[in-house]
């Protein structure tokens, strides 16, 4: 077969133009990092969600009931809510607050609040027009608990209240006969007792955050850094006081782990659906606690780049043993960089003198009480204050 020189020339020109157009398009896509059409791609062609992400704009997780099924505020509502937020930020962390309708200054809880106020860091100054992160159900609120879950959670609350009974942070009454009872669940709360590490709260024990992470607002609200490889996506969450962790999501079509394998952060299995990363997470353990859901939690996480500077992080949580129906929430995270938002290593076990300090000092207080040199620790609020309880 003979190919004419003219045909070859035309072919070469068309091929060159095509390659040029492809390169141009790819460059535009990489530069724009935008949604579908301009979606940035990794070197191996996957949607590029990489970067450091956080949020400086406050959106409440659940919608205040006044907004009904409205997902956004009016201008007037927004102006008022923003002014209120700014007023609230001006208030000191203590002194102005009451506890149970009485001035709380000087109580153990008040001191704990003041002490912990520092850790809260920067307060949010920007307020979204969105009335809630929860988008489904339509009222923007986490669905009601099942009767079984309501009882389970109420039982735990009663146990916590019993151990606070008679203290400045609890209801009136004598030291509860339940003082030495075991916790009704795998404990992650601050029990007003320090007989062993398991009496203390998850953050005190360096448990680290769970799944899914809902980032708080501002520099102390947390930041996540996402990096990708062809077969996995890794998200590092820098949150709290060493509560951060690195979460590796395999991109795979393997089934979930056998049901008898239970993990604090579950078993994540990731896949790409177009430009969206979908992560299905099951196999949680009884150490998991996401808004009352424990080992039966099922989370579907969806991450998508809305544009160059916005990462949409949506999760659907379901657990028929906890909620009457599934619910979905969305956070919109902003692109930031290492200069403005330093990402620091989490993990607090090595430096956690606090946990031993809590136990040692409670023993010291008990000894002092036995020797008639101090109050009975059981009559003091050694649990609340500062946000976790």
């Amino acid at each position, binding site marked *: 077969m003979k190919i004419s020189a003219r045909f070859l020339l035309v072919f070469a020109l068309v091929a060159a133009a095509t390659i040029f157009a492809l390169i141009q398009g790819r460059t535009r896509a990489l530069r724009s990092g935008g949604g579908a059409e301009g979606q940035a791609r990794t070197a191996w062609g996957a949607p590029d969600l990489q970067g450091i992400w956080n949020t400086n704009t406050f959106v409440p997780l659940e919608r205040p009931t*006044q907004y009904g099924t409205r997902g956004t505020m009016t201008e*007037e509502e927004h102006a008022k*809510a923003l002014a209120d937020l700014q007023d609230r930020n001006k208030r*000191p962390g203590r*002194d102005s607050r009451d506890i149970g309708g009485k001035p709380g200054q000087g109580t153990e809880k008040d001191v704990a609040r003041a002490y912990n106020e520092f850790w*809260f860091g920067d307060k949010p100054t920007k307020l979204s027009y969105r009335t809630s992160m929860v988008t489904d159900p339509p009222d923007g609120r986490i669905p009601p608990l099942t009767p079984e879950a309501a009882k389970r959670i109420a039982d735990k609350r009663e146990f916590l209240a019993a151990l606070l009974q008679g203290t400045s942070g609890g209801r009136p009454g004598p030291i509860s006969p339940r003082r030495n009872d075991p916790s009704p669940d795998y404990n992650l709360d601050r029990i007003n007792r320090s007989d062993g590490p398991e009496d203390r709260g998850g953050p005190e024990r360096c448990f680290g955050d769970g799944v899914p992470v809902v980032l708080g*607002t501002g520099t102390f609200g947390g930041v996540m850094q996402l990096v990708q490889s062809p077969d996995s996506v890794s998200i590092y969450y820098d949150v709290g006081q060493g509560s951060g962790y690195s979460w590796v999501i395999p991109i795979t079509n393997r089934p979930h782990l056998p049901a008898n394998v239970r993990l604090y952060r579950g078993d994540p299995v990731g896949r790409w659906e177009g430009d969206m990363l979908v992560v299905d997470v099951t196999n949680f353990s009884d150490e998991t606690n996401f808004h009352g859901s424990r080992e039966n939690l099922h989370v579907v996480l969806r991450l998508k780049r809305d544009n160059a500077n916005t990462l949409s992080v949506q999760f659907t949580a379901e657990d028929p043993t906890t909620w009457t129906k599934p619910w979905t929430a969305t956070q919109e995270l902003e692109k930031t960089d290492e200069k403005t938002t330093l990402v620091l290593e989490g993990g607090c076990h090595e430096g956690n003198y606090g946990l031993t300090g*809590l136990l040692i000092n409670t023993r010291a207080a008990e000894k002092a009480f036995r020797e008639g040199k101090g109050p009975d*620790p059981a009559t003091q609020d050694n649990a609340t204050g500062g946000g976790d309880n």
Partner: protein
Amino acid sequence: MRRQLIAAAAALAITAGAAPVRAHHAFAAEFDAKQPVKFEKAVVTKMEWTNPHTWIHVDVTMPDGRKEAWAIEAGTPNVLFRRGFTKDALLPGTAIVIDGYRAKDGSHRANGRNLTLPNGQTLFLGSSGTGAPEEKR
């Protein structure tokens, strides 16, 4: 008026959950609010930049001239860094004024509440009226 009240209630409700709740531990189980300590002459000997808290080790000159070694619990490294507080701020030899609450077991450990650097800059947050960073905003 009623409309204003509803708007105010709605505004309050939407900001009510604004404060992040990631506090670390119960203060009272470890430290004694009735045993405040203040060291006018403390010299840094070592900083431990660890999570969940940094620890400032200091040599304190007591009123009778004796020296005592104390360890002061301070903020988490990421909060300190995000407030512009770097590793160079508390090098060994830095003279600081520090106050806080002593541990219940009587050891030379305390929870730091306010720290004043040689240039007069005050760090950490105490109760209202301390001039701490939060209150200056």
